[in-house]
C-alpha cells in the first residue's frame, strides 16, 4: 500500500517531464516549426492533438487491431515463459546439457528476427502461428537466462545444509532453488514484456492481414501519419500493461527479492 503510494508519488516528476515534452511537441507541430525544421509538408508531422484525434476517431479500427496484436503477444509471451523456464531448469539440472546447449540458447538471441520473420511466414502462412513464434523467440532469451542465473545463486553453504537435512536433488530444486529463482525469472519476464510488442510488429510486417503492425504498414503507405502514431500509442500501452501486471505479480509473490538484495539481511552482520 505505502509502496504503491510512493511509486505514484515518485512518478510525478516523470509525468511532468512527459507532459512538458508533449506540450513542446504540440507547439512545434501546430505552428509548423517542426515540419519546417525537418523540411517536410506539415501534414506529415502530426501534433499530439491530431494523434489524440485519431485515437478517438479511429478507435474502433485501432482497438480491433490492438486486440489481434494483444492475443499474439500474450500467446507468444506465455510460450516463452514456459519454454524459458523449462530450458533454465533443464540446463541447471544437467551440467552436461548446459555445456552442450547454452551456446544454442545464446545463438537463439542472435537470430535477426527481421530476417527470420518472412521465412516463418513462408513456412507457416499468414495466420497467428509465425507471430507467436517470433514473439516467443524474442522473449525466450531474457527469461531463460535470468531464470538460469537465479537458480544458480543459491550459495554452496545452503546446498550443503539441504544435503545435511537429507534433501535430494529434486527437493533442493523445489524447496530452495526454484523460489530463489522466482524474482530473477520475473525480472527476465519484465524485459521480455517490453520487447514482445516489437516481435509482434516484425511478425505482422512479414505478412499479416490484421494487427497493429499491419495497420502501421497501411498507414505508412497511405501517409496516415497521425494514425500511425496512434497505433504506436496502443502498442506502447500493451507493453506497459503487460509490464505493470508483472510488476504487480512481483510485488505480490516475490516481495522478498528486494529487501534481501537491498541488504536488510546483510546489514545484520
Amino acid at each position, binding site marked *: 500500500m505505502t509502496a504503491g503510494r510512493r511509486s505514484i508519488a515518485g512518478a510525478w516528476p516523470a509525468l511532468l517531464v512527459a507532459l512538458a515534452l508533449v506540450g513542446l511537441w504540440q507547439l512545434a507541430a501546430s505552428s509548423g516549426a517542426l515540419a519546417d525544421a525537418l523540411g517536410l509538408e506539415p501534414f506529415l508531422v502530426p501534433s499530439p492533438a491530431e494523434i489524440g484525434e485519431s485515437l478517438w476517431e479511429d478507435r474502433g479500427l485501432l482497438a480491433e487491431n490492438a486486440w489481434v496484436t494483444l492475443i499474439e503477444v500474450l500467446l507468444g509471451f506465455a510460450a516463452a515463459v514456459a519454454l524459458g523456464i523449462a530450458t533454465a531448469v533443464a540446463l541447471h539440472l544437467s551440467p552436461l546439457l548446459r555445456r552442450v546447449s547454452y551456446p544454442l540458447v545464446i545463438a537463439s538471441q542472435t537470430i535477426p528476427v527481421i530476417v527470420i520473420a518472412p521465412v516463418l511466414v513462408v513456412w507457416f502462412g499468414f495466420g497467428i502461428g509465425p507471430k507467436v513464434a517470433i514473439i516467443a523467440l524474442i522473449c525466450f532469451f531474457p527469461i531463460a537466462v535470468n531464470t538460469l542465473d537465479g537458480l544458480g545463486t543459491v550459495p554452496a*553453504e545452503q546446498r550443503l545444509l539441504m544435503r545435511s*537435512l537429507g534433501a535430494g536433488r529434486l527437493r533442493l530444486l523445489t524447496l530452495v532453488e526454484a523460489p530463489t529463482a522466482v524474482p530473477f525469472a520475473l525480472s527476465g519476464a519484465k524485459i521480455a514484456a517490453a520487447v514482445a510488442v516489437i516481435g509482434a510488429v516484425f511478425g505482422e510486417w512479414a505478412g499479416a492481414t490484421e494487427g497493429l503492425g499491419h495497420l502501421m504498414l497501411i498507414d505508412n503507405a497511405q501517409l496516415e501519419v497521425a494514425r500511425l502514431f496512434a497505433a504506436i500509442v496502443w502498442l506502447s500501452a500493451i507493453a506497459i500493461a503487460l509490464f505493470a501486471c508483472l510488476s504487480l505479480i512481483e510485488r505480490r509473490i516475490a516481495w*522478498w527479492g528486494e529487501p534481501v538484495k537491498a541488504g536488510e539481511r546483510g546489514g545484520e552482520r
Partner: protein
Amino acid sequence: MAGVEHRYGPTEVLAGIDLEVAGGETLALVGPSGCGKSTLLELIGGLRPLQAGTIAIGGTTAAAARTAASTWMPQRDLLLPWASAADNAALALRARGGGRAEARRHASRLLEHVGLGGFAAALPHELSGGMRQRVAFARTLLAGTPVLLLDEPFAALDAITRGELQAWLVRTLAEERRTTVLVTHDVEEALYVGDRVALMTRRPARVTALIDVPPAPAGASRAEAISDPAFVAARADALRALEEA
C-alpha cells in the same frame, strides 16, 4: 574417528585427528581460526569426501549413513527469506519428503518449545539475530538425527545474546540427549556448553588436549557457572594449552 587427515591442495589442514564422542555427550572443539574445525565437522557429517582415516557414527562408516544420522548447523542461519519461522524450521522435515501442513505443525510445536511460540508466522527479517539462530537450531533439532553438528552457531551474535543463547542451548541439549559436536573459537563457550573440550592446534591441526569439564554447581546460572573457581581454573588451563599449541 581415527587418523582423519585432510588437505586443500598443497595445504595440510588436519593432521591425524583421533576423537571419540559418547552417546548423549556434548564435545566442544576449540582451536584458532582456520585450523580446520569446520572441515572436520563437515567430514563427520559426510558432507565432504573423506581423504584419509575413518569416521563412524554408531558403528557405520559410510558417508551417506553419516549424513543421514547427523544434522549440520552452520554459523550463518541460512533461513529462507520468503518462509516463516515455522516453515524454515519445517524445512528439516520437508527436505526428507514430509508434507507441508504436517511439517509446519511439528515445527510450530518445537518453536513453542524453544521459546518462539508467538513467532511461528514471523518472517526471518522480522526476527532478531538471536531469534533467527534459535529458529535455525529448531530446524536442526527437528531433523531428528541422533547427532548434531554445530559450527560456531553463536559467533555472529553480540556478547549478551550469545551468553543467553549458550545458557538456552545447555538447557535444551540437557532435555534432548543428543550427541553433539560443537565447534567454536571461544574457550569459555566450549567449557560452558561442552561436557568435554578438545583443544586443536594451528594448521595442520591435531588435538593437543582433551579436557573433562568440571560439572557446574547444581542450579547455577550461566554467570555463576562461568565464575565458579573450577571453571575459571579450567579456562586458564585451556587458554594456556592453546597458547602453547
